[in-house]
């Protein structure tokens, strides 16, 4: 399962406006190559925890170490570089750039990382079953196809860590299965995966399930 710790979260709290407590002294270690599902009701702090792990947000207190780097100590530029080189993000709302086609959306992540390589981007889309949808605009793709394009974009720069926020939240059963097959493939390839989900069927595919409630860890299975 895991070969050493990739993510080490120690006593992490997050307050909004100094008052609203979204996370309360969270302690969690995630091993390299591990698949962890973060579950819990709405407002339990799942997305906040994911945002902190992905370096999109900073904790109000506590320590977050990802790949040996204390991300709380990184400045704005270092945090951006860390996110670009270490993390692949998958969103519930897909967040594809509407005026770029599927291929260009994947190449955009390459462009910000280093250099855009059309052939590599094409292969990434073929891998997620969109070889015949390369030049389709997001509006011409189904929800499942958009999510697969989003997965191809997340994986194009070979990130150590894949973070997904409700990746199947907007998908029907068939597309959910297709997407989860991709996650299973990623897991087999050794990617560390953290998924935020409400769906018990998605959650049970993970190595561990972390249940949050009112910003605290209720249980870990």
């Amino acid at each position, binding site marked *: 399962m895991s070969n050493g710790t990739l993510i080490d979260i120690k006593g992490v709290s997050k307050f909004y406006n100094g008052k609203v407590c979204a996370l309360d002294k969270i302690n969690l270690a995630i091993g390299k190559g591990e698949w962890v599902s973060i579950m819990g009701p709405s407002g339990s702090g799942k997305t906040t925890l994911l945002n902190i792990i992905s370096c*999109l947000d900073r904790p109000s207190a506590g320590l977050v170490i990802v790949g040996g780097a204390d991300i709380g100590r990184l400045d704005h530029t270092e945090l*951006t570089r860390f996110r*670009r080189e270490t993390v692949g993000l998958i969103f519930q709302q897909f967040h594809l750039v509407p*005026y770029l086609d599927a291929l260009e959306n994947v190449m*955009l992540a390459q462009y910000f990382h280093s250099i855009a390589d059309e052939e590599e981007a094409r292969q990434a889309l073929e891998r997620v079953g969109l070889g015949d949808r390369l030049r389709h605009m997001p509006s011409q793709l189904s929800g499942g196809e958009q999510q697969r394009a989003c997965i191809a974009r997340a994986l194009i720069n070979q990130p150590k860590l894949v973070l997904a926020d409700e990746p199947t939240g907007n998908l029907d059963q068939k597309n959910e299965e297709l997407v989860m097959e991709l996650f299973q493939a990623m897991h087999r390839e050794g990617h560390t995966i953290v998924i935020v989900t409400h769906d018990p069927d998605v959650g049970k595919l993970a190595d561990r399930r972390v249940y949050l409630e009112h910003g605290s860890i209720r249980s870990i299975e």
Partner: protein
Amino acid sequence: MLPRIIKETFLRRKKWVAVVFLAVLLGASLASSLLTVYGDVSGKMSRELRSYGANILVRPESAGLELEVGGISYTPPSARVLLDEKELPKIKTVFWKNNITGFAPFLSVLAKVNNETVVLSGTWFEKTISVPQLAPRQFANKAAATKEAPTFTTGIKAIAPWWRLQGDWVTEGDLDEAIVGAEVARKLGIAAGDRFNTDYEGKSTMLKVAGVVTTGGFEDSQVFVNLPLVQQLLGISYGIDKALVGALVTPESKIVRSIKGKRPDKMTPEEYELWYCTPLVESIAYQIEEVIPGAEAGPIRQVSEAESSFLGKTELLVLLITGAALTASALGVMAAMNTMVMHRRREIALMKAIGAHDSQVATIFFLEAGIIGLSGGLAGYLAGLGLAQLIGREVFGMPFSFSSIAFPVTLALAIVIALAGSFVPVRRAIKTEPVILLREV
């Protein structure tokens, strides 16, 4: 990738791109027109101001010791130091010869008319002279030297076109006619067409009043005749007290501070070259001294200083208006870019979330702004050129000449306007953490 993003922005946000383009165009067109005006306004205004009198006085070098009141020499004729009027055409050979709009000699005596003492001034009214071709400091080939000498028409009419005359001008060479100042005409009770007798040291001359001049100045109390008549009265074959020269000049503010007020012999060679090659009233006066031996030329302070101050203020006004127009344009760009950036916050957040650095996001927006700035600048330059020609025709009665500097400067200003106007919105957008933006969508 970058061209694709920029192209899509232009296609998808036509309205806001058009607003930014218009803001840049307005600023650039005003800058272009005012730069064209600025480049030529000194010349145009100086030409206009020349209508109000000469600005350089040329006198004999030692004339400073003579007794002179109100510009009239009271030194006895035998003790007077005079200039040779035959030297005056050389004024049209100085380095800034094309800036010389006219000159007129003056030789005055105090004559009696009906027991009244009046100043009788001999001058040129409208004399055509031959301009010497081989000027000092110039190298001319033999072919040029054998060409027919160019002519130049000068005199009172050239340096004082503002004279209000009742009657006619004196015919050049006619020694029986005079132009009488309004004050003299009133005292003597004469008008155009009348005849009057003058007496100078027993020499009596009957003159016909060709016209009566009113200027509100010293001219109202003088009588003007052709120069040879006064020379005959003084018993000399040539000679003048002074000459007044009208020259198109540039304000002193145009030259570097270190040269101002410095004598030419105290200047470094570089300073001297700059000073000599700038059409300042002092440098043109200096050049006149160079070509007329024994002459002392200097600016008529009252006129030249007022002119310099006026031109300086006009140019400052043009610069201030340009600055205000550019600022207003940049504010317009900022407002439009701010809206554009706000509409694209989701896109910015996404770019940052997938690893875009601040500089990469800023590059996209600044490139878009730069392209709009460049195109707005091009269109603005053309519009400004038209506007400048309109200003030239309506205000000065002639179009402004093409300014080679206006084109690159307008383009540069347009790009600066677009970038400066984009700076605050882009900075605000890229400094926002992506997580905040993602929460909003």
